[in-house]
């Protein structure tokens, strides 16, 4: 059987639903990002990069057992890397965005200093 996904009805549906979700999310993503001004491309990339750390959810599951087998070790490493991605990504994005001054307000505040 080349495509066992057609075999069991539950499993098959599961896959196709996931594929659908995948495609819909891609389309939504394209629409969302196309509207972001080039000015914010770096913070945007940095933020989406942090978001890609969502894989931390998977890594948590993989690292939930403290067993000395390959699965847990890989999971442990995955947790470290995903956390670097998430924490570092959001923090550095926040740092960048803090710098973009709002012309009226922030500018004047600076001048008063």
């Amino acid at each position, binding site marked *: 059987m080349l495509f066992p996904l057609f075999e069991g009805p539950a499993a098959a549906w599961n896959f196709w639903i996931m594929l659908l979700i995948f495609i819909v999310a891609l389309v939504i*993503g394209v629409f969302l*990002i196309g509207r972001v001004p080039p000015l914010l491309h770096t913070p945007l990339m940095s933020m989406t990069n942090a978001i890609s750390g969502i*894989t931390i959810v998977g890594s948590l599951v*993989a690292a939930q057992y403290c067993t000395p087998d390959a699965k847990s070790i890989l*999971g442990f490493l995955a947790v470290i890397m995903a956390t670097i991605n998430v924490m570092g990504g959001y923090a550095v994005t926040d740092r*960048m965005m803090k710098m*973009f001054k709002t012309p009226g307000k922030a500018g004047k505040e600076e001048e008063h200093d």
Partner: protein
Amino acid sequence: MIDPSTASKIIDLPKWLIYGGNALAVVLFIIGLVMQNRVPTARNGNRLSAIAMFIAVLLALTEFKVFEPWLIIAGVLIGSVIGLFGAFKVKMTAMPQMVALFNGAGGGASMLVALSNLHEKSAEKLGELANANTEATLSTLTDIVMVGKDEISIMGVDVAITTILSVLIGAVTLSGSVVAFMKLQGWISGRPIMLKGRHAINLLSALIIVVLGGLACFYLEPPIPVIIAFWIVGALSLLLGVLMVLPIGGADMPVVISLLNAFSGLAAAMTGFVLENHLLIVVGSLVGASGTVLTRIMSKAMNRSLMNIILGGVGGTVIKVTSGTPKAALPKTEAQEKPKTGIPAAVEALKKAERVVVVPGYGMALAQAQFEVVKLTNFLEEQGKNVVFAVHPVAGRMPGHMNVLLAEAEVDYEKLLELEESNEEFPKTDVVMIIGACDVVNPAANDPSMDTPLSGMPILEASKAKSIIVCNLDAKPGYSGVENPLYDDPKTMMLLGDALATITGIRSGLEEPEEGAAADASEAEEGGVPAAVAALQKAERVVVVPGYGMALAQAQFEVVKLTNFLEEQGKNVVFAVHPVAGRMPGHMNVLLAEAEVDYEKLLELEESNEEFPKTDVVMIIGACDVVNPAANDPSMDTPLSGMPILEASKAKSVIVCNLDARPGYSGVENPLYDDPKTLMLLGDALGTIKAIRSGLDKPQEAAAATQAPSEGGIPSAAEALKKAERIVVVPGYGMALAQAQFEVIRLTNFLESQGKNVLFAVHPVAGRMPGHMNVLLAEAEVDYEKLLELEESNAEFPRTDVVMIIGACDVVNPAANDPTMDTPLSGMPILEASQAKAVIVCNLDDRPGYSGVENPLYDDPKTTMLLGDALKTVKDIRKALGSSD
């Protein structure tokens, strides 16, 4: 959603709460992305996204079946420390590599999760096999789809495929990002690294991945070889990532980093497939889409296809711009070579020289350079060189003038050679330094074919030396008025400008051999910086074009100090940011934001290109390819051709603060550098910008001199109008562009109220449509009887006291009537404004009009040029005449 039906979780949340929570997280992620559309909301959008991540993590924890979170706690702690440390320590200029590194970590995590899942499943399967349970069942932990009737597999084909994709994409992201990081950090060369046979290796790796993956997918038994196959896939994918990024050069990095960003998202989405986790799929594909969109924007802006970039190879060779007018090529050899290589070349020549002769002249006395000269010669002697002075009897303004000066500077008199001794010395001399002398070294005196005031005068035959350095104020002839052929000698290096500064520059160049850039900068300071300062002082609209060079020189703060200063002077300053300037999308924006530039001043490509024609001065700081006009030249076929560029060349003048005049990453030479309106300030941008700012801070000398004439224009125009009785206004398209018609009419009404006769001369093709000017003037309620046609106008001009030309050029260009010239205008009927007694030109600039033919009228002594925005000029004239609003 790791099997929410499982009963054995430690925290048993209701299903709706888990799904609801995940849905909330997705919605928050999306809102966070939407909030990136505007600067004011972007920061909160990022925080919202972080909250969503937190929710997702909490929900994942509730899915646990046992509570042994020690690995997780340890992992999160280690990861947080590394991540936050990196995030807060990184300099803004190093942002691309930091983002790349974080990105790689995410991709790597996805790969590891997929591999971990594989191990888990195979362990289960091995356990099952040990129990001799050959019946196909669904796992209680995960949905294991059993394949076929007889086969026993560890997972379904769909899971297997997505596992492979997850491993492949995750691994490429990881290794690719690490290589990108190393390139950006300078650990390995930023130039394309082309390994021999990399295409073959890539192809072979891809083939093995496909074969192994296929085998693993469809013959998923027994588990151990399958696991080995997956690990091989992972290892080969890491290799692929390295080989993918290695051949990609520095300036293509924005594309690569965007692409890797997309990959890390797709890897997460694939991991979602593997774990059947909808949240991972949604969020991962959002990121994948975002990265893909950015990749497309970047490669479009680079004018390269993604394939072209990945295959690499640009930037390895320098492409000479061969086409283009010979006019452009000619100044290149003169203007480019000399100022660029000036002091460093002189330093180089002196370093190599063994016998040096200094020829002082009156110019040395004027510049008070004798002490500095002697310091230099002392230094050269310390280096073991032989240095003497050749003193011409009439050098200076009194007999023995030079001897006195040099004695004052404590030069041993034995080193002062007289004329005959000197001329014996020159043929043996490596370098002659001429300091403020001209006629006494003029070889024209010895040329029997020439009859000049110098002919027959005994001279110092400096031309017989191997090379010559001339440190004079200018290249003009000396007192005799005879041009000095020595200046054009190929072995002569002309270091024009204040001799004191030049000598100091040479000495510091000799003393600090490693800092070639510093010498360059000081050269720029002496020659170019004052000119740049003068240009900036006169400018009203300034555009700054930052590039990667600004990041490298860490010059952003200094640049912003300069622009703030310019703004305080009432000038309009904006920044033109090319999409791919720098090493990642929006790189320049981040740097400028760091330096607290208001983001509304950061113009995008199209806005910038609309701005340039109105711009007085463009300052290019460390950018090359993105302003290279060769990209727009259809006659040239270069890697840049067709790339959208910042059309800085359209501004009135250009200041380039780059390290050198070499081509940028593309290898295409930049014709802009040879443009006569371009001022090249080579050297360290930080130093150059500082020098410009300090030059602007001391406006007393230069400013007073330069601003006076520009201020003088309007009063003298007003004066002319006051005296005039018959005035003709010539409107052109420039008036329409400046929306100046109402202001013009106010002025003419005022002039009429003073009893003057004012008429309008309307050329048939003035403006952009027939009768364009008439419509505009009618709109401003000008009596149509005052609108003269061509013949009437030309009859009027000889009687006219003052002609005011407002935004017109070709239609008043007298070159059209000149039978000796063959121009596109030749034979066109024009408004003969040149026949009036005085002419006032209120144009934006003094460049040729649409025809490209220069307007001799502008150089006419009776013409007053009032350049700049016509609206403002006309208003100022009216105010100067004493009219109130």
